[in-house]
Structures are given as C-alpha cells and as structure tokens.
C-alpha cells in the first residue's frame, strides 16, 4: 500500500486529500505514479499537469524521478505560501 496526499488548491480540484492504494504494477517512480493518476479522468489529467506542482516522498521534497516503494507516503502540492 502507498498513501497519497494532495493539498490546497490541488486537493480541492481532485475532491480528495488523502487516499491509500496498492502500488499499481510496473510503477517505480513518482513521475510514473503521477502519469497513472492522470488516467483517472479529465480533472486528474488537468490538475496534475500543472508544472508548478511539487512532490514529496515520505515528507521530503523530491523530483519526479524519485523512486516509489510499497509503504511510501507520496504528496503533491502547489508552491507554498506560508509565513
């Protein structure tokens, strides 16, 4: 199982902020997982295509070529605006 998290405007666009799923067959990187999620429909295709999105693996920011393993927590989010 992997845990997937979405935040802020992305969470609202996708209608979910947190889900768990069996890592799909053949998916080994964040980029592949993003592409797999985009096949879920037009909203997913469009929302996850935003080039400004950041990804985190186990709560550390990573690039799209980062590996994804069973048990990971992967997050997608727009640029941060705190402070």
């Amino acid at each position: 199982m992997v845990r997937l998290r979405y935040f802020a405007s992305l969470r609202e666009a996708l209608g979910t902020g947190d889900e768990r799923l069996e890592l799909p067959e053949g998916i080994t990187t964040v980029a592949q997982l993003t592409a797999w999620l985009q096949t879920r429909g037009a909203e997913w295709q469009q929302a996850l295509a935003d080039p400004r999105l950041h990804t985190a693996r186990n709560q550390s920011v990573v690039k799209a070529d980062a590996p994804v393993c069973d048990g990971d927590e992967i997050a997608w989010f727009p640029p941060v605006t705190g402070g």
Partner: protein
Amino acid sequence: MIRVQQADFDPGAELETQRLRCAGRAGAVVSFTGLVRDFNDGATVARLALEHYPGMTEKVLQKIAADAIGKWQLVDAVIIHRVGPLDPNDRIVFVAAASAHRRDAFRACEHMVDALKTDAPFWKREDTPQGRRWLR
C-alpha cells in the same frame, strides 16, 4: 523550539520563556512577528485560512531551526506558525533567534523567516468579497 498550532500565541510570553531557557548564555534576541494583512493584490481580505501538511511541516520547521542554530551558533531558536482560520491583524508566525551577539541574531532571524516562506508546506486561502482564492 518549534510549534504549529491553531491558537494564538503571546510574543512577550514566548520571549520570556526563551530568555529563561538561555540562562545567561545569550546576549541578543531578535524576533519577528508576522500579521495577517487586510489587503492583498488590491483585494480586501475578509478572512484567511491556512492549510498545512501535518508531519512534514514540523520536520521542515525543525530543520530550519537546526540549520540556523548550526550556521550562526545560536543559543536558542523559536518558530511558531499558526494554521486554520485567521482574521486580518491576527498574529500568524513568530520567529526568535537568541545568540551571544546581535549580528548573528539579526541574520539568523531573517534567514529563518525567509526559509519558512520558501520551504515550509503552508498554503494560504483568502476569502475576499469577490470569493475564495488560493494564493500563488
């Protein structure tokens, strides 16, 4: 010391707690308090909602404080950030750097504020008379 909380904080009380923790080892404390403005990009902001990534937020703030302590040899560093609904003029963030010397305290405080703006997973949503919008 880092904290993420919905509740307001008292900068005076936080500085006093920090002063007691320093126990004579610090000669200078520089602090920063961030407030919610009632305007942004020309729009009047009625309310702000702050979302964050629980778990990652604390890790990032901890790292920002530890990095500052290492780089400027601080005696103590404090970062407090609020989440949830906030009104104009509310306190939103507090950063305090205690050092043996004022120069390090000034620099470390500014660095921590800058770092949390670029690295910490917080997102602001504004409620304006024109509707809700996420800040970019």
